[in-house]
C-alpha cells in the first residue's frame, strides 16, 4: 500500500493505489550484484588485471555519462547503475591482457555513441556494452583475441596466451579440443568453473548461472529469451555440430563455452533492446540462437553471441509490431486515435 493510503485510510485517491518497489536503479544495481559471482571468479582466474580492466570500464562509463549529461544540461542520471552495468558487462567481455586504452575507448563508445547520442537510457537501439565490444573487436582485432591462460596463481599471471575452447574447436576440431583438456569430463569441468581461456566474465558458467538464478527469482528477467536462446543453440549444435553427420553434435560444449550464458541471461534480456511481448521474446531468443550457431559453425569468427544479439536488437521493434495482440471490438476511428 502506498504511504498515502496508510496515513489517510479514508481518503480516496487516484490510481495506482499500490506501487511496486521496483525502480530503474534498484533493478540495475541488482543486476550488477548478480554479476558479482562471475566477477569474483574472473579475478580469481585472471588476477589483478581483471580488476583493473573492469574497473577502468566502469569508471569510464559512469564518468562519460556524467560529463555528457552535465555538458548538455540534461538531468544527471549517471548514478542509477545503468552506466555502471554497461561498464561491468563490457569489462567482462574483454580479455585481461589488453592495454588500458582499450577498455577506456570501448566504454566511451558504449555509453556516449551507443546510448547517449540516441537519447539516453531507454532510447538506444543496440545493447551499449555489446556495441562497445564490437567496436573494439573490429578496431583492434589482434589485441582483442589474445586470451591469457587462466592460472589462479597470482605470480604467473599473463605468462601465456592461448586459444579459447571455441577457437580450438573451430581450428582443430572436437578430438583435439578434448585431448587438450585430457578427457571429456575434464573439459566440461573446466568450462563449468571457468578455468579456460576467454573473456573475463564469460568463462565460469556456474558463477553466471548463480547470478542468472537471482534475476529469475526476482523476476527481473523471464525465462523466455534465455531459454529459447539456449535451447536453439543446443538443438542446432546437436543437429548440425557433429562431423559424422546430422544429430551427432555435442550441445554441452556449445552451451557452456564462449559468451553464451553471459549473453543469454544478462545481455539479450536488456529491457531496452529486446521485444516486450512474451511471444516476441521467444522469437528473439530463437533468432539469437540461430545466428549464434550459424556464425560458430559456418562463419569466420569462432564466437557469434555478440553479433547475434546485436543483429536481433535491430529486429526487436519489428518483432514487437508483428506479435502485438489483436484488439477486438475496436472501431477504426479509435485505432487511428491510438496511432
Amino acid at each position, binding site marked *: 500500500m502506498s504511504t498515502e493510503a496508510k496515513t489517510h485510510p479514508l481518503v480516496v485517491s487516484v490510481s495506482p493505489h499500490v506501487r511496486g518497489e521496483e525502480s530503474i536503479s534498484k533493478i540495475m544495481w541488482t543486476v550488477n550484484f548478480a554479476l558479482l559471482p562471475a566477477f569474483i571468479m574472473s579475478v580469481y582466474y585472471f588476477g589483478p588485471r581483471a580488476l583493473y580492466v573492469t574497473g577502468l570500464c566502469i569508471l569510464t562509463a559512469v564518468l562519460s555519462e556524467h560529463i555528457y549529461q552535465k555538458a548538455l544540461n540534461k538531468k544527471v542520471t549517471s548514478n542509477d547503475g545503468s552506466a555502471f552495468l554497461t561498464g561491468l558487462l563490457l569489462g567482462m567481455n574483454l580479455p585481461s591482457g589488453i*592495454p588500458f586504452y582499450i577498455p577506456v*575507448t570501448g566504454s566511451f563508445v558504449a555509453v556516449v*555513441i551507443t546510448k547517449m*547520442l540516441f537519447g539516453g537510457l531507454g532510447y538506444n537501439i543496440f545493447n551499449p556494452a555489446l556495441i562497445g565490444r564490437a*567496436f573494439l573487436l*573490429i*578496431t*583492434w*582485432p589482434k*589485441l582483442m583475441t589474445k586470451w591469457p591462460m587462466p592460472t589462479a596463481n597470482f605470480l604467473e599471471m599473463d605468462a601465456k596466451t592461448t586459444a579459447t575452447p571455441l577457437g580450438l574447436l573451430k581450428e582443430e576440431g572436437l578430438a583435439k579440443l578434448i585431448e587438450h583438456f585430457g578427457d571429456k569430463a575434464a573439459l566440461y569441468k573446466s568450462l563449468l568453473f571457468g578455468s579456460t581461456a576467454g573473456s573475463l566474465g564469460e568463462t565460469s558458467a556456474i558463477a553466471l548461472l548463480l547470478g542468472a538464478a537471482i534475476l529469475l527469482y526476482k523476476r527481473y528477467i523471464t525465462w523466455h529469451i534465455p531459454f529459447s536462446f539456449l535451447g536453439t543453440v543446443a538443438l542446432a549444435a546437436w543437429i548440425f555440430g557433429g562431423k559424422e553427420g546430422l544429430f551427432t553434435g555435442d550441445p554441452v560444449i556449445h552451451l557452456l563455452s564462449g559468451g553464451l550464458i553471459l549473453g543469454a541471461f544478462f545481455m539479450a534480456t536488456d529491457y531496452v533492446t529486446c521485444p516486450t511481448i512474451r511471444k516476441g521474446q521467444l522469437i528473439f531468443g530463437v533468432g539469437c540462437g540461430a545466428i549464434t550457431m550459424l556464425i560458430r559453425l559456418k562463419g569466420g569468427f569462432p564466437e557469434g553471441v555478440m553479433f547475434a544479439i546485436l543483429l536481433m536488437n535491430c529486429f526487436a521493434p519489428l518483432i514487437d509490431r508483428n506479435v502485438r495482440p489483436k484488439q477486438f471490438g475496436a472501431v477504426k476511428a479509435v485505432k487511428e486515435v491510438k496511432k
Partner: protein
Amino acid sequence: MAHTHKSNWELIKNGMFSENTIFRMAISLCPSIAVTNSLKNGFYMGVSVIFVQTMVNLTVSLIRNFINPKIRIPIFMMVIAGYVSIIDMSMAAWARPVYKQIGLYIQLIVAFASIFARAEVFAVKNRIVPSVCDGLGMGIGFFLAMIVISFFRELLGKGALWGFPIVSGNPLLIMILPAGGFFAVGLLMGFFNWMDAKLASRKGESASAEKQAA
C-alpha cells in the same frame, strides 16, 4: 522560368556551406563513405565531382532552351554520362594507382543525386554564369566534405595522411572500414550542426543587442 536573384559569389558560398551536399542535404552519401578511407582517394573523388558538376551545369544551362521538358531526364543523364566518361578515362590514363582503388566510384558519379539535382533544380532554369557558379560551389562543397571526412578517417584509421605515416601505435582500424565511415559522417554532421546552432544563437544575440541599443 525562375531566375535566381543571388550574386555569383553567394551561389558559390551557398553550395559550399549552407547547402553542402553531404553535411546539409545528406545526399550522395555513398561515395562519402566508400571512398573516404584515405585522403588521396577523397581528394581525387572531390576533384572529379567538381569537374563533372561544373561542366554538367554549364552544358545543361547552354542547351536549356532546346530541351523538351518531357525528355529532360534522359538528356541530363547523357550529359552527365559524357563528362563522367571523360574524367574516368583521364584518370585511367594519368592516375593509375588511385584509379584502381576508386575507379568504380568514379563511374558511379553518373548516378549521383547531387549532380542530377543541380541540373534539374538550377541549371535548367538559369543562365550560364550563375549555373557555372552554382555547379562550382556545389562541387567545392562536396570536395571539402570529402577532404574533411577522409582526413579524419585516414589519420585515425591508419595513423597516416596521403599515405605518409604520421602517428605510430595501434590505429583505430574501424575508421577505415565501412562502419567507421558511418561514424565519421555522423559525428561530423552532428558537429557542423552544433557549430551552426552556436553561430546562429550568437548572431541572434548580437541582433537582439543591436535592437535594444537602437
